[in-house]
């Protein structure tokens, strides 16, 4: 019988069982890496580095997980914070603000033929809308869970999802033609 996330977490907490944590990493690596790939606009190497940092932070702070939210939601929150910190550091080092970084054209969208691709369209959304759409529409989180991950009001999440979807629909309108 496969152990639940709660069972594995208990083993990590009580026995310091690293194998149990390894199983948790194996289970959740795909959605966490997927989210970070979207946030970093498909920079796979950077996304994986941030994902690694996410799991290491999760391990170090696992005692602070109270089980009030799903383990995956908690991981998404850490991943999002890792990404934000990276963006902040980048701003300090390079001297561009996050909004500028967000609005830099994605090289993959330079080809008009790829504009119809969803990934390219997603990459063009502002960070807050992209994150909300990826969490809610792609990763299946409820608005409430996404609000916890992003630490923003529920209403803001709903607005960001709605606006993001509307923009995606405009960008991808050619699909229905």
């Amino acid at each position, binding site marked *: 019988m496969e152990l639940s996330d709660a069972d594995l*977490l208990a083993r990590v907490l009580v026995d310091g069982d690293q194998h149990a944590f390894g199983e948790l990493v194996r289970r959740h*690596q*795909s959605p966490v890496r997927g989210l970070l790939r979207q946030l970093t606009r498909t920079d796979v190497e950077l996304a994986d580095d941030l994902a690694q940092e996410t799991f290491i932070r999760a*391990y170090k702070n696992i005692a602070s997980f109270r089980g009030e939210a799903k383990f995956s939601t908690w991981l998404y929150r850490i991943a999002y914070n890792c990404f934000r910190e990276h963006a902040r550091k980048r701003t300090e080092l390079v001297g561009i603000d996050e909004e500028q970084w967000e609005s830099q054209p994605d090289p993959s969208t330079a080809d008009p033929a790829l504009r119809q691709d969803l990934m390219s369209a997603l990459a063009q959304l502002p960070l807050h809308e992209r994150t909300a759409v990826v969490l809610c529409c792609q990763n299946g989180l409820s608005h409430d869970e996404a609000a916890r991950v992003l630490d923003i009001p529920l209403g803001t999440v709903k607005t960001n999802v709605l606006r993001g979807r509307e923009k995606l629909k405009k960008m991808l309108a050619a699909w229905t033609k």
Partner: protein
Amino acid sequence: MTMNDPLDELLDARLRDETAYIDDDGFTARVMRELPVRPRSFQLQRAIIILAAAIVSVVVAYFASGEATFVREGFMRLSALPAVEMLALVFIYGLTTMVGGAWAALARTRDPLG
């Protein structure tokens, strides 16, 4: 948001499709290599400390109380109790132990992370 909008349905379907599984491809192994080492015998250390503290406390209490004469006196008083009172005492003690045991068993079955 109109749910019957074909573009909405198409968008939802494509978004779900984009959630492709990312192969582990050595990622978990890389994370595991970077994990900080935790003291494996923390539980054992804690048990040893508690046991040692308990033994020291008992020894100190024994000598500080005049070699525990009050314990001997207590047992003598108990042995002199009438049978009914002794029965009631045993019953209360048994009930308390049972309730305590049941509470401990239930506490263990709760979500340890809650």
